[in-house]
């Protein structure tokens, strides 16, 4: 695990780059508020299907996305609203997609679990655990073969590390020295199965390192630590250092999905982790350092709420894809199939 920063180091970092710290706070809040609204809209039956929220884990996406370039690629999981939003997919298009509307980023064909966006090179939204990893390897292979210095960031949960596709992908990426940043979001539960009940080796960075992939564990509740480690890893990957693996130790505050009665974990454990809420923590630190006052926070929340309000309004006023277009996009329009 990367050594935790001392209080002095953290204060120095925040003081040196207060704008960046406030920006990371704002980004995390964008995800939190968008998803809180999603939960409400799910209860109101505006959003259907499966809905997996990222509440509690926002520091990971916020920190990693800030380390990427616009021409890099991102592959994510079914818990990807935050990744899509922070990658730059408009909140309006995300919300409209969850409403199943034609104005959604996938014209209503993907839904919550399958957000895609060509403009930001956001390759989903993969709802088969570990299914996105081979894709990331291939995207990186294409960059390598075409001489581009782009990085592919691939997000997955610790549950994916029990899947064969994880092992095949790490081996291939290391063997071919491909520019992939593997981002494991270890929230301790594969749906309801605790890490120690599903992995013989619970030190996940050690496991990844066995493939000769440079690997670290990072405090995933600390957005500054995430940003710092991601920036270094992305630089290393981009400059030809081969694939890197970061285990972000994080926690999901809410249920796995909207159907999860949470019989598998103690309330006290959830409460313990909620004390480490990445948003409240950073806000507190900024306030303690005198770098964020009540007006500053009010300004951030006002902007974020306005963005979410606009997204919901956009989605509410969306239209339904015509049934005549049901069979579109099964094959490309120029294909004759």
């Amino acid at each position, binding site marked *: 695990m990367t050594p935790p920063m001392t209080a002095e180091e953290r204060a120095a970092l925040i003081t040196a780059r207060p704008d960046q710290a406030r920006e990371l706070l704002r980004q995390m809040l964008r995800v939190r508020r968008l998803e809180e609204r999603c939960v409400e809209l799910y209860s109101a039956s505006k959003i259907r299907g499966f809905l997996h929220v990222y509440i509690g884990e926002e520091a990971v996406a916020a920190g990693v996305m800030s380390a990427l370039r616009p021409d890099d690629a991102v592959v994510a999981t079914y818990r990807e609203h935050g990744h899509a939003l922070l990658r730059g997919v408009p909140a309006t298009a995300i919300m409209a997609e969850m409403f199943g509307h034609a104005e959604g980023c996938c014209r209503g064909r993907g839904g919550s679990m399958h957000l895609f966006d060509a403009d930001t090179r956001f390759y989903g*939204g993969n709802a088969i655990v570990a299914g996105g990893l081979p894709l990331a390897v291939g995207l990186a292979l294409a960059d390598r073969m075409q001489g581009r210095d782009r990085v592919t960031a691939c997000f997955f949960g610790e549950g994916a590390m029990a899947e064969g596709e994880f092992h095949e992908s790490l081996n291939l990426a290391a063997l071919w020295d491909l520019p992939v940043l593997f981002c494991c979001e270890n929230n301790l539960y594969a749906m309801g199965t605790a890490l120690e009940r599903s992995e013989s080796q619970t030190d996940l960075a050690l496991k990844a390192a066995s493939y000769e992939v440079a690997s670290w564990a990072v405090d995933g509740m600390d957005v500054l630590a995430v940003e710092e480690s991601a920036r270094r890893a992305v630089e290393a990957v981009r400059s030809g250092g081969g694939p890197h693996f970061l285990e972000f130790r994080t926690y999901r505050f809410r249920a796995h999905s909207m159907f999860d009665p949470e019989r598998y974990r103690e309330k006290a454990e959830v409460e313990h982790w909620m004390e480490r809420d990445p948003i409240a923590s950073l806000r507190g630190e900024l306030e303690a350092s005198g770098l964020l006052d009540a007006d500053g926070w009010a300004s951030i929340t006002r902007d974020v709420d306005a963005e979410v309000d606009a997204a919901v309004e956009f989605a509410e006023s969306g239209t339904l894809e015509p049934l005549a277009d049901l069979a579109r996009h099964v094959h490309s329009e120029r294909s004759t199939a």
Partner: protein
Amino acid sequence: MKTTFREAMRAAMRDAMQRDERVFLMGEDVGRYGGGFAVSLGLLEEFGPQRVRDTPLSEAGFVGAGIGAALGGMRPIVEVMTVNFSLLALDQIVNNAATLLHMSGGQFNVPLVVRMTTGGGRQLAAQHSHSLEGWLAHIPGLRILAPATLEDARGMLWTALEDPDPVLIFEHGSLYNVAGELADDAGPVDIDRAAVRRAGADVSIITYGGTLPMVLAAADSLSAEGIDAEVIDLRTLRPLDDDAILATVAKTHRAVVVDEGWRSGSLSAEVSARITESAFYELDAPVARVCSEEVPVPYAKHLEEAALPSVARVISAARATVGQVEAVAGHA
């Protein structure tokens, strides 16, 4: 020129890699070994290890990497040594290659070609003798090809590579050594239409891939006894060329479907259903099928032969189909 099915496939890959630098080949033992069936022999020496990539035994990994590389602007040819091993890559084929375009609302197409050997008949027993192309032909978003002639072995690959969407090519293992004449200027062929391989008037025998030579041999024998069979090579298993199927039935009014897959839920079932749905009143006899027996393909030669379609079974089915008509006519 004289060539073989294997050499025609190799010529197609060489041609594709010469035409388009985005095209590359990857799979198990495609490089130094020269390919599990020697199809890619010599390509590593000609194109180098960047474009002829030996992969680890990671079917899901390298098929998925092929999908990713296609998304990233390359034109990969992924060789899965046999359809049997492709079961380890079904997640990538079915959940990603076939769905990404649709799930992304048309944003991400996957211009990927996957080649694999299929079929039995070589005493390789149950785990190396599957004919599962009919399964894959069930999946929207995929195009499924089954070359059975030298022209198609030479010509289908380039057309498949030009398709913006994923194409799976099934090469029956018994075809690689088939030799014959191929035009010197043989090149790309269409991958949309079925072909009439033998014109006939009495019964249509509809097949594809590895059973085409068997069906043509059966048609010759039938001819000697006065039954004039028309032989249809489906060529493309998805999407099926309905027009060609219905046209031949409208001509002969009798159909026998020959498919090395098992009968239950097979491609032959689909062809048969389409005939009864759309050409029922053209039929003078029930549609007949010759498929594999519903057993895992056994090792012992006599058992395997009994399990797979054969010339004798095709002849017998065709005779019965024609004979049944005569019996009905006799009653009238």
